[in-house]
């Protein structure tokens, strides 16, 4: 095949940011609690139904931790009155609490964790170099980080590059729940990174351990080992969500989720009929 002809035929592959942040119609979105539908029985059922233990009831609160959700879609398909669907990929946050929805059962309202802190100004740079450290992840979060550099996502257009050595990096992208065997290597990589330095936890496992949270062989999240600037949920985190996290770190976009719910942009959509 003639490369020139092929290139012309292919045309432009790179998608606009807006386009990238849209979730394809066939992929399930994130669950969002609907306090009015959370009756006692429904809560029992939700706790039973979620394969990934994303729901919890404790201290008069009903919680949904997005970092434990594996996006199976079962909860909002079974109980649409109690769980809605949040579609979109701008899910990176600066605080762990902003991935947890908390409903106060006495008042039936969401607990507001307050405005999120801004990302650090010294990392608001036009270009950022990253070093990826895989610490006990399945390998798919790594793949997704690599795919964030492909022609469709093209993170290079925002000045983001992945460099070979932590000494050349401005921030670490850490994937995985931090296995005990990687703990020291991760710490040493962090020490080798010059100040100012940021840390991005990529994927549910890095955010809170997900299905590995209970294992004694893992730390159960990057923030148990290092200070984390940005959390990107997902199982694995999608390239567009990773891109959102990097843009958030560099101060170019705003955080969309607060207390696990969307505070800016379009209102939550109701679940599509299945």
């Amino acid at each position: 095949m003639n490369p020139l002809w092929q290139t012309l035929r292919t045309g432009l592959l790179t998608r606009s940011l807006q386009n990238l942040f849209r979730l394809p119609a066939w992929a399930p979105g994130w669950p969002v609690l609907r306090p009015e539908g959370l009756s006692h029985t429904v809560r029992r059922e939700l706790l039973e139904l979620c394969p990934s233990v994303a729901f919890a009831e404790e201290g008069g609160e009903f919680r949904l931790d997005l970092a434990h959700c594996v996006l199976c879609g079962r909860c909002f398909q079974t109980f649409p009155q109690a769980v809605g669907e949040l579609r979109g990929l701008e899910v990176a946050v600066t605080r762990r609490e902003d991935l947890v929805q908390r409903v106060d059962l006495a008042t039936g309202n969401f607990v507001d964790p307050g405005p999120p802190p801004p990302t650090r100004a010294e990392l608001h740079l036009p270009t950022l170099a990253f070093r990826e450290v895989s610490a006990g992840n399945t390998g798919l979060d790594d793949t997704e980080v690599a795919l964030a550099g492909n022609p469709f996502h093209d993170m290079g257009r925002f000045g983001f590059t992945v460099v070979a050595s932590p000494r050349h990096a401005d921030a670490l992208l850490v994937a995985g729940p931090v296995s005990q065997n990687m703990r020291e290597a991760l710490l040493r990589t962090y020490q080798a990174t010059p100040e100012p330095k940021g840390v991005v936890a990529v994927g549910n496992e890095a955010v809170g351990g997900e299905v590995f949270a209970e294992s004694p062989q893992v730390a159960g999240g990057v923030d148990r080992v290092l200070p984390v600037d940005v959390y990107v949920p997902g199982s694995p985190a999608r390239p567009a969500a990773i891109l959102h996290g990097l843009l958030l770190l560099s101060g170019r976009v705003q955080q969309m989720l607060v207390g696990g719910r969307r505070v800016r942009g379009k209102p939550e959509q109701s679940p599509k009929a299945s």
Partner: protein
Amino acid sequence: MEALKQALGSGRLVALWYDAPHLHYLVEGPEGSPLQEFQVEARGSFPSLAGEFPALDWFERELWEEHSLVPEGHPALKPLRNHCLPYPFERVEGLHEVPVGPVHAGIIEPGHFRFSVLGEKILHLELRLGYQHRGVERLFQGAGLERARLLAERAGGESVAHALAFCQAVEAALGLEVPPRARQLRRVLLELERVFGHLGHLAGLFTDIGYAYAATQVGKVRALLQGQLERLTGHRYGRNALTVGGVSFDLDPKTQLEVRGALSRLGLEAEAQLLSAFKQPMVLDRLRYVGAITPAQARWLGLVGPAARACGLGRDLRQDDGLYQPFTPVLRAGGDVLARAQVYLEEVRQGFRHLERFLTELPPGGGWVDEAGPSQEGELRTAFSRVEAGRGELFYWVRLQGRRVEQVKIVDPSFKNWRALELAVRGMGLPDFPLINKSFDLSYAGCDL
């Protein structure tokens, strides 16, 4: 013991696991002969066979670590995944040592490689893995079937193959019959995952030899292929799509037609790009004679999957799968990086052909069988299953108590293939290492569990 040795001498170890108080050796005989299972009682220790059959080395070290069973007479007993114990590297007197990892320069999982070099030439390599160890097998203990499936999807790099092997093992234990439509849809996902993986290995090889154009073109096809997998299952890697008893997605005739059309276009494009890339003298020169493994070495180490087929060892579990018939495994003789790349290339073409066939005629009916019946009782059941994943033979053994998992044994193909790297790099230059490593494309997570 004698019968076991004889079987190992002429066949290949599939798996070795401990179901107290017995060790189970599963051995596959030469071409087409049935599997043989040997049981050896072991309490505290067992006689090591690793000296005679190196394929058992890591299995025995694993038993020592996981179950405190001492393999008596093991030639070099040292930890596999436990990093709390000291690890004595084998030193070669007078050679310079180059340590690499666990954190690598690329976007890749962690592992440590200790090279002994003379100038640029690698004379010896010792791998030390275990950095990805998350204690997956222990997390299965006591898990319900749904949760266990989530764990299986995260055990290694290939979500669909792991979920499939786990589900098949459970179905065998519970005596569930999966409806034909679900069986075929599972094969669709398995082939999509295989082609996706192989295209990734090929794009990686092109990147490593500096052929950016081909890498980008192959990467583009790969990204679009992933879009089709997502279209079918709602997940970019096909997670949550399989369930014990069947599949949890279905497709209407319109989607079926569209996906088939998109895949056949991608198939043509992948084929054209790859065939033209493999005509370039630069590509052939750069890949040929690099990182070669002989058939004898492959047999000795018990290699599986594309790595074995690139040495002319013809074993592909799809040969025994009724849905794939007629099926001829892709074989190459060279054993070098080029041979492995050609196996990937041919399997990509083969995969697209199977996808086309599977999606043309889907059996009607439901995609899921309700697991009622005997499974409800609290009785103990065990079963194993094997799946030809993109990287090779994947093995799952489960012991169920009612509908809970009591114990599992996972043998990822990478667990058997990692050591091939140690032999393949001998005599090669240090800069060739990334290329050779990429040509095997092994899963660290699947090996470390």
